[in-house]
């Protein structure tokens, strides 16, 4: 296996895979209850910790998988996009998004 596979995809396959992955993304988000602003916001009033639980279990599962695949040499990490760090924009952007989140609900 030499993941990531996207360089071998034709454009149509690439876009079809995108829709499919999006399908599961949307499906699990809805299953978790993230389509409800109320449920999302309840997190910040210490009433419902679903946001934290879902988000961190997702991160841990994906992180362990990625670490395992790259350790055994299946996943070429040099071809994987890692978001670059810009400390101030990301700090301020995060604060803005958090503030907008609690006002707007999503």
């Amino acid at each position: 296996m030499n993941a990531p596979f996207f360089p071998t995809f034709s454009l149509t396959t690439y876009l079809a895979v995108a829709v499919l992955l999006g399908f599961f993304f949307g499906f699990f988000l809805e299953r978790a209850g993230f389509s409800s602003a109320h449920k999302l916001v309840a997190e910040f009033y210490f009433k419902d910790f679903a946001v934290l639980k879902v988000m961190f279990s997702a991160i841990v599962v994906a992180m362990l998988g990625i670490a395992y695949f790259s350790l055994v040499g299946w996943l070429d990490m040099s071809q994987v996009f890692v978001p670059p760090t810009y400390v101030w924009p990301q700090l301020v952007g995060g604060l803005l998004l958090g503030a907008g989140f609690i006002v707007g609900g999503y």
Partner: protein
Amino acid sequence: MSPAPLTVEQAEAMSQRHIKKHHVAIMLLHWFNASVWLFELATGAALIASPYFRVMPYWYIDMMESLFGSRANMLQFHIAVGITWVIVFLVYGIFGFRTYLAKQIFEKEIALDRDDVNWLIIRALRILKKSDEPLPPQDSYNAGQKLFALLVYAMIPIIMITGLIMAFHLVSTAVVGWAVVLHFAAVGLVVSGLIIHVYMGAVFPEEKAAFFSMLTGMVSELYAYRHHFKWWKEVKMQEEAWIHQLQGGSGSTGVAPPISGPGPVAPPAVPEKTEEKHGSPGTFKRIFRAPEYWPPYVAGAGLGLTLLATFVLMGQGLGASGGFTRYLVAVIAWVAPNYAAHSAYWSNYVQPGQSPLIAFLVFELIGVVIGGFVSGWLAGRIRLAVDKGPRISRRTRYALALGGGIVTGYGARLARGCTSGLALSGGAVLSVGAWIFMLSVFAAAFGGAWFMRRYWL
């Protein structure tokens, strides 16, 4: 039995009452289907351009090609929209087999009975002014609509299969050649019916109510009584049976003539159809159709596996705001191409000869909508509602949502990602910036919660 003539008061009362005609899922499918047909006809008409045969003038073909940058892009778009269409229909067909395919289509939409045949004959005679017989009563779809549905349901599989054969060059060159002809012929047949369908829905005054019922799901009782009497009767019978049940035996029976003025109890529009499910609840039903959300760790694990698959297949994570940005760029580049190409920010997304819409996130978002819809649909959570705190009005909620959305959007683009694209995906590959971002999101939201408590609690 045909509808009895109404008095003015009866008609007035009936026009005030509304009954539910379409389920939200049907309305969404209808408008999804309508937009697919719009896009596919617009691009398809421009794709048929050979020296021997074309359907549109050259200026139209040129315009469409320059809109997409190139012919190849336009073809890719046509194929991508078509495949999305196939997938959505498969999802509806598979998940909604019993309610949608069996009940909706075979029983309500295409089954022609004797009344329907007579309706067609009398309708034709009336148009030719050879008869003034009253039209036989109709079910929830009239015979004309049923004929159109028959045509469409016969042609859709042909269009889908020939489309896939062309898109992926399946079987052999000869088969692809025939697929082209069949694809065009089948679309041509549907379009001939579509012209009448659109005319009836959008222009024909008597059918105005049918058009609005596709937006609101409701029709007035008067319209139902006059145009779909058999269906009206069925709804009324259910209502009566329901009232009967509630009052434990008393209450009026019989259907026509209609009750004028307020009835014994003001019943809700239509009693919710409680469908008898056969057999004991299976595992599938327990897992997918239960109204509760999944336990957070289960949903989180599913989300994590999806994220892992995305990294393995695509070399990047899932996202949201980047996709919306691309939709916006496409509009900007279309309205003001010069500005988009030279703006410091938008020009990042604009490459000559390539649409900003041909990107992972753009198509992923289409999947998100479908996936979220299917999940909510299976669990019976689909409804139109304003999700707000108990102490505020709808208007306040709208204003807060707009304001919060603007701040959220700005923050997301400033940080180069949102909670999905940066915090979740970046977090999983241990990007330092992603963790800074995530912590500041939670800090600001927990901090702001105190100030916003009046609006949410």
